């Protein structure tokens, strides 16, 4: 009878909080979008599933050993932790919700040595960190996973179209205005009193506008790890929505005549140029923005492996086994940040609104920049390829192509849009470097 009672009081049904129930629903919605609507399934399937796992009551899969110890809150454990965490508690004192709040608040106030000591006490009492938390520490806490994915993306990227028409880099630059406009938007929202954002949070949200998953996750993990779940979900969801978000903006900002502009065929790019390009980007990064070196360095390394032609087996592995393994672990890790107390917050709403704004502004900036360049330079640019500057590779380039075909069924813009498309990846990484430089 005793054991039956334990089973019941330890069951999920008995302990399920409303927040957890809502987050499990959110996880199911993400799975639905990923599987049925094909919203970036490679990331959203693991994220959605991880989100459900993270919200299983009592399982503590997304918690550290210390958090698990506090969650169960046995008096002797709390008494052992109190002096280390500098919380005023003695054995026998009432276990009020305020007390638990104080303990949980004390986690972030500890320095590294105290944290190690407190975790040791939790371990001594038999608590261990959940599997999703372990994944998070290894994959995102160390910063390794987004960089390895970026390396794999580099190994899949062809810079040929960009090298054939270098000035499309400027379109990739302009589209980054979405990022910074969002930071201003966050400041406005904060000023309005609707919700609070710090500068760090505003910057981490802005990077959603970069439309690059790994860059968003990398920046969020450094500047605002508590928002990582919402930021990653927003970033990947909006990337999947690019075909819905962009076309109206593109049509609104261009005339039919502009959309019909035919661009001259791209010149052939030699293998040597493709090899030298990633090295050039790395050297420029080294000279001008060391803070972007982890992101751009790994990206260029992947691309060099692809282009140099002498390490196919490494390039293949970077594009397949390695990136797949890291994606599985990264997705589950992001899911670990979808716990109710971190996600069900007014801030998440703000993130969703601002992220959408970032995408729209970035798209518009890219298109307007193309029109500006048309006014200045001779060789005509179809402004529809400007929207591809937000990256979201290769979806945004395909959107440019599709809207172009609507205006002129003979006008194939895909290859021309790939230039600003990959330029957007570099542009976002540079913007990320600037933010990390000033804010971290």
């Amino acid at each position, binding site marked *: 009878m005793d054991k039956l009672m334990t089973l019941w009081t330890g069951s999920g049904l008995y302990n399920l909080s409303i927040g957890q129930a809502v987050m499990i629903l959110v996880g199911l919605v993400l799975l639905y979008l990923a599987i049925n609507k094909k919203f970036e399934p490679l990331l959203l399937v693991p994220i959605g599933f991880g989100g459900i796992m993270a919200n299983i009551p009592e399982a503590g899969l997304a918690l550290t050993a210390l958090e698990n110890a506090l969650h169960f809150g046995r008096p002797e454990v709390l008494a052992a932790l109190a002096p280390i965490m500098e919380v005023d508690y003695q054995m026998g004192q009432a276990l009020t919700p305020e007390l638990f709040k104080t303990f949980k608040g004390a986690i972030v106030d500890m320095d590294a040595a105290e944290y190690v000591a407190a975790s040791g006490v939790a371990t001594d009492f038999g608590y261990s960190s959940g599997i999703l938390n372990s994944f998070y520490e290894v994959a995102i806490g160390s910063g390794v996973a987004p960089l390895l994915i970026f390396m794999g993306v580099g190994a899949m990227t062809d810079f040929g179209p960009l090298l054939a028409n270098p000035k499309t880099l*400027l379109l990739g*630059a302009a589209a980054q205005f979405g990022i*910074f406009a969002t930071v201003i938007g966050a400041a406005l929202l904060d000023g309005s009193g609707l919700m609070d*954002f710090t500068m760090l949070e505003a910057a981490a949200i802005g990077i959603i506008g970069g439309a690059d998953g790994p860059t968003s996750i990398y920046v969020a993990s450094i500047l605002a790890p508590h928002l990582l779940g919402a930021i990653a979900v927003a970033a990947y969801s909006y990337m999947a929505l690019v075909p819905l978000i962009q076309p109206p903006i593109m049509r609104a900002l261009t005339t039919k005549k502009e959309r019909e502009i035919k661009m001259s065929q791209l010149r052939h790019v030699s293998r*040597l140029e493709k090899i030298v*390009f990633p090295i050039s980007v790395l050297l420029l990064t080294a000279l001008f923005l060391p803070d972007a070196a982890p992101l751009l360095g790994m990206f260029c390394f992947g691309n060099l492996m692809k282009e140099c032609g002498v390490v*196919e087996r490494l390039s*293949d592995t970077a594009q397949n086994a390695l990136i797949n393994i890291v994606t599985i672990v990264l997705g589950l890790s992001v899911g670990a940040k979808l716990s109710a107390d971190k996600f069900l917050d007014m801030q998440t709403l703000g993130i969703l609104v601002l992220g959408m704004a970032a995408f729209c502004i970035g798209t518009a900036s890219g298109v307007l920049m193309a029109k500006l360049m048309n006014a200045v330079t001779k060789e005509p640019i179809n402004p529809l390829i400007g929207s591809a500057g937000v990256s979201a590779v290769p979806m945004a380039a395909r959107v440019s192509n599709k809207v172009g075909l609507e205006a002129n069924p003979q006008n194939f813009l895909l290859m021309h849009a790939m230039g600003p498309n990959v330029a957007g990846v570099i542009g976002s990484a540079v913007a990320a470097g600037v*933010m990390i430089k000033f804010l971290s």
Partner: protein
Amino acid sequence: MSELMSGALELTGVGMGFVFSFLIILVGVMVAMSAVLTRFAPEAPPAPAKRRQEPQARASAPAKVDADTAEAIRIAVSKYRARHK
């Protein structure tokens, strides 16, 4: 103006400025590089170029065979079907 707003504006200015500077420099480097490479290390005309790539073309070789194979198979299959319909 709140501190956050002034920070945001400053970040936007410096950030966009830097992004543009960096990418403009990169444009310059790319143009220069292409010019230099075209001048001093011109790629051989198409045919030899193909030959040069062959040593490492093992990975893409199957794809090529596939094209032929596909045709061969398409024919074989259609014959087979015609006969067994």
